[in-house]
């Protein structure tokens, strides 16, 4: 129920956007709750974009996890 799926904004039309869930699955969703531009990723739940997905943050998070794990290894913790 709280499942929300990332999708890419393909077209914006006022409060609505056409988004791509990947593999050609397109849908119109309501984007009035987020500030999304064409090309952005949004999290879609029950026909509404509820948040934008920060792609840069995603990359940083992964890099950070790898770094933390490596650094802690050196310290032998």
């Amino acid at each position, binding site marked *: *129920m*709280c*499942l*929300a799926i*990332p999708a*890419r904004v393909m077209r914006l039309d006022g409060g609505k956007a056409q988004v791509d869930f990947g593999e050609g699955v397109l849908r119109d969703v*309501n984007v*009035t*709750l*987020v500030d999304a531009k064409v090309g952005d*990723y949004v*999290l879609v*739940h*029950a*026909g*509404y974009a*509820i*948040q934008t*997905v*920060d*792609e840069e*943050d*995603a990359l940083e*998070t*992964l890099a950070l*996890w*790898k770094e933390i*794990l490596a650094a*802690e290894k050196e310290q032998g*913790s």
Partner: protein
Amino acid sequence: MAEKHRFRDPELAKKIVQKIQKVTPKDEPVKFCHVCGTHEWTITHYGLRSLLPRNVEVIAGPGCPVCIVPAAEIDEAVQLAQKGVVITCFGDVLRVPGSNVSLLEAKAAGADVRVVYGVSDAVEMATREQDKEFAFSAVGFETTAPSTAVEALGKPPENFSFLVSHRLIPPAMELLLGVGDLNISGFIAPGHVSAIIGMKPYELFPRVYRMPTVVAGFEPIDVLMGIYMLLKQRAEGTARLENEYSRVVKWEGNPRALEVMERAFAVTGGNWRGIGRLPDSALKLRDELSAFDAREKYGVHVEQGKDILLGCECHLVIIGKIKPDECPMFMKACTPAKPVGACMVSSEGTCRVWAKNTAAQKI
């Protein structure tokens, strides 16, 4: 975006598991609780429990918004359907047991019950079919409530109303801390609820209850990392609020969604199936919107329903006291094809997740 694949990297998962093993105290039992059906799905589907040290347990709290809708609120929807109002609902709600019948059974008996993907589809139907009355069964936690709020504030057609069953997650988490023998050592807080409410509502858990709390995402790496962060706090002897899911969850949540919720709803006490009444845990349309409140509009009010059938242990599964396979009916009298309790009905119910994933792929 290959996000999901990156956050499923088996090499990284292996490294996190090694770190988890290092920071886990040797003999003390550690029990973390999540409150989200999607977390349960990830944990079960990828077999994450089997990767954890023996003394680290992850239990599922009341994370399925469909499972905790009390029978009385299903009865209200059934009554409306029997009066000739078209009931629109999420697919998962259809088979949730009412005191006597589910919406699916009402439909089989001739009522007009329709499954929708979201509330806007329901509003569109009502706009198209002005000769009929429509009500939407608005089930869901904070993830879903903003969509209801937007539609309620957006001047829906006069033949449309809402049967609001929204519930709030933080009060349920607080309740779990009061369940004496659960002995939770930390919370994995739900990522998509948090995308809306942000971090602030969880502050009290570390501050007041000294409970390490980590907001985590839904890929295997997210959940493993969340567990690692909790174990690390424990090893350091601290209790903090941390955000593993920063690509989606901001400190302030989604202010626009919070603002529409605030305008549309008042917070009130509400019943939870298997739990009972929790103060300040439910949403109700504000008085200005009462024309769209199905309970007011049609005068349906069911105070008390039959929540738990004899022999069903949903009330214990919902608060994480027992695992589904400890219920004598699990996969015997109660299966996904013939569910007995609400926890077997919804795709996010703990019993249903366990039933579907007994032979699932492992990471």
